């Protein structure tokens, strides 16, 4: 199916329901709001790192004209104007870029203002693997990609499977604690990090019942005594015990700790199109601590 991206009314795609009048593209964002576009947007502002990453993964990086302060990937976006944080963007700067569409997180207070100023706003916030997939599909619809998001998703699935294959055999079924942030805030089974860990064949000590990122009593971790600790170097620290009483953990004793630093620390906590790369970063570290 061939379609012209620039001519309104002509776009037709299996995932695009044609709407009356000029609206060629109708999609539903994470607020449940139907957003109608006359044509695939040529000028996109992204105010959430994972959304900019998703647009780029779908091959539309060049259409992004502005990003939020926290977007760090891909490097091609580095020269773009920074429009403030995702929750408090510089509205004037967003409007000045004359975007066809603004991609923003659901929690942002700026949504109302931007819409009142006549901008098309699509609010999305991926929190699980399924939602990452869903966001890619929505954005593929927005971009009116004939092949949809499936090729990209298939590559990600393939990457996740590769990461799982890269896991050393003796690490299978090992029990893991992933620290999302100091507190300790854990990444539970039903967080996207937990889903990645499960794909790698690791067993999370934080069950889904506790929620995606619960703040735990540190003795819960001591009692569960995981085989492996993972987290940013910021919260697990360089060498000292992260919390009192943790030096007796078998993971601390055996040195089975994955501390992610720098760009990797960003990578592993972002629910975007790079979850397969994040999984591979985890697998590489596990290879090191399970020689």
């Amino acid at each position, binding site marked *: 199916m061939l379609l012209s991206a620039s001519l309104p009314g002509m776009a037709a795609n299996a995932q695009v329901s044609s709407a009356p009048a000029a609206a060629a593209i109708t999609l539903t964002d994470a607020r449940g709001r139907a957003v109608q576009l006359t044509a695939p947007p040529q000028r996109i502002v992204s105010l959430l790192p994972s959304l900019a990453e998703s647009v780029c993964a779908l091959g539309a990086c060049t259409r992004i004209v502005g990003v939020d*302060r*926290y977007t760090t990937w891909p490097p091609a976006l580095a020269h773009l104007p920074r429009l403030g*944080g995702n929750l408090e963007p510089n509205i004037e700067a967003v409007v000045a870029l004359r975007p066809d569409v603004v991609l923003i997180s659901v929690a942002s207070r700026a949504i109302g203002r931007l819409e009142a100023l006549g901008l098309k706003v699509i609010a999305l916030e991926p929190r699980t693997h399924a939602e990452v997939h869903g966001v890619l599909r929505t954005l593929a619809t927005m971009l009116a990609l004939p092949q949809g998001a499936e090729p990209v998703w298939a590559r990600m699935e393939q990457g996740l499977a590769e990461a799982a294959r890269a896991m050393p055999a003796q690490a299978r079924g090992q029990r893991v604690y992933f620290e*999302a*942030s*100091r*507190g*300790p*805030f854990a990444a539970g089974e039903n967080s996207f990090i937990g889903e990645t860990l499960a794909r790698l064949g690791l067993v999370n000590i934080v069950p889904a019942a*506790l*929620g995606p990122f*619960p*703040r*735990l*009593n*540190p*003795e*819960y971790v*001591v*009692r569960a*005594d995981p085989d492996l600790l993972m987290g*940013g*170097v*910021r*919260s697990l620290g360089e060498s000292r015990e992260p*919390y*009192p*009483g943790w030096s*007796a953990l078998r993971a601390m004793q055996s040195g089975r700790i994955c501390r992610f630093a720098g760009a990797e*620390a*960003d990578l592993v*906590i972002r629910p975007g199109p790079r979850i397969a790369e994040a999984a591979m970063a985890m697998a590489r570290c596990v290879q090191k601590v399970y020689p």
Partner: protein
Amino acid sequence: MSANPLRPAWLALALLLASLLLLLLGAGVGSTGWESVWRLAAPDADPLAWQIVRDIRLPRTVGAWLAGALLGLAGAVAQGVFRNPLADPYLLGSASGASLGVALAMAALGVSPFALQGLLRLGITGAAFAGAVGAVLLTLLLAKGAHNTMRLLLAGVVVGVVLGAASSMVLMLSPEIMQAMQSFMLGSTSFVGWGACALMAAVLALVVLLAWSLSRVLDGLALGESTALSLGLPLAPLRLLLIVVMALATGTAVAQTGLIAFVGLAAPHLVRSLVRAMHGWLLLLSAGMGAVLLLGADLLARWLIAPQELPVGVLTAVLGGTYLLWLMHRRNVQEIA
């Protein structure tokens, strides 16, 4: 004042008993909720359970008690020095100073390993302490000493606002520390080990001794500055010393447990509503009251949704605030009757 105030010694005894009871309870409240400590101590018990009690539960229980005592004492000193019932230990900018120190230290942990080396070596705890004490010194500098109360309060408020804005700035530039920062702002005892306990105990002993020996100054101040001066007290240096005591107590507590709200404000009020006493007793009882309040709140924070935890600062405000409001209400009713 209520019609029949308690004798200070009775309240002291009650606080002591409550502390003991809560300390015992604290050994039993953990990640699985309530656990029988007897069973843990049994010979066939799991050694891991015993290690958890020894290395995690006991230090944080004792630590909550000590931090509460430091904050309660600092609150009583603050309200005495400023002769203002609204004064709390964070009044001279120590809270925002500590936050700024912590925010800088946490942000520095993320960036290049060579940036801010000194701050890193200090650690998050050291940075909090340095920030708290530094902010109070800055306030004193801006107020040109401690002799003018209004000037001092104003300088404290300004320093608090400016340093608060600075830490917001740091937070905006490194958003990844947001969640860890939140756990500092709302307070937590999960980082307290035996080392932190020993430090807090040593500081508590020092500041209790200092404050207690200066309690006559606070009694004099309670009668008004001119009366205090006419008693022959060298007000300016003594007041400076009291502020140093307050800063030391607050800085030490905040560095180990984060910004726990309301204990410093509520503890002296609760004591005054129960007993009528000179500052000698008031200081000691406020420390005891703060300790009981914070420890009680910490136990609830650990127990209510175990194995998850609530921010302890939220519970201190709910517990202390509710009790204080109830006392005020009761007193009104009595006065009307």
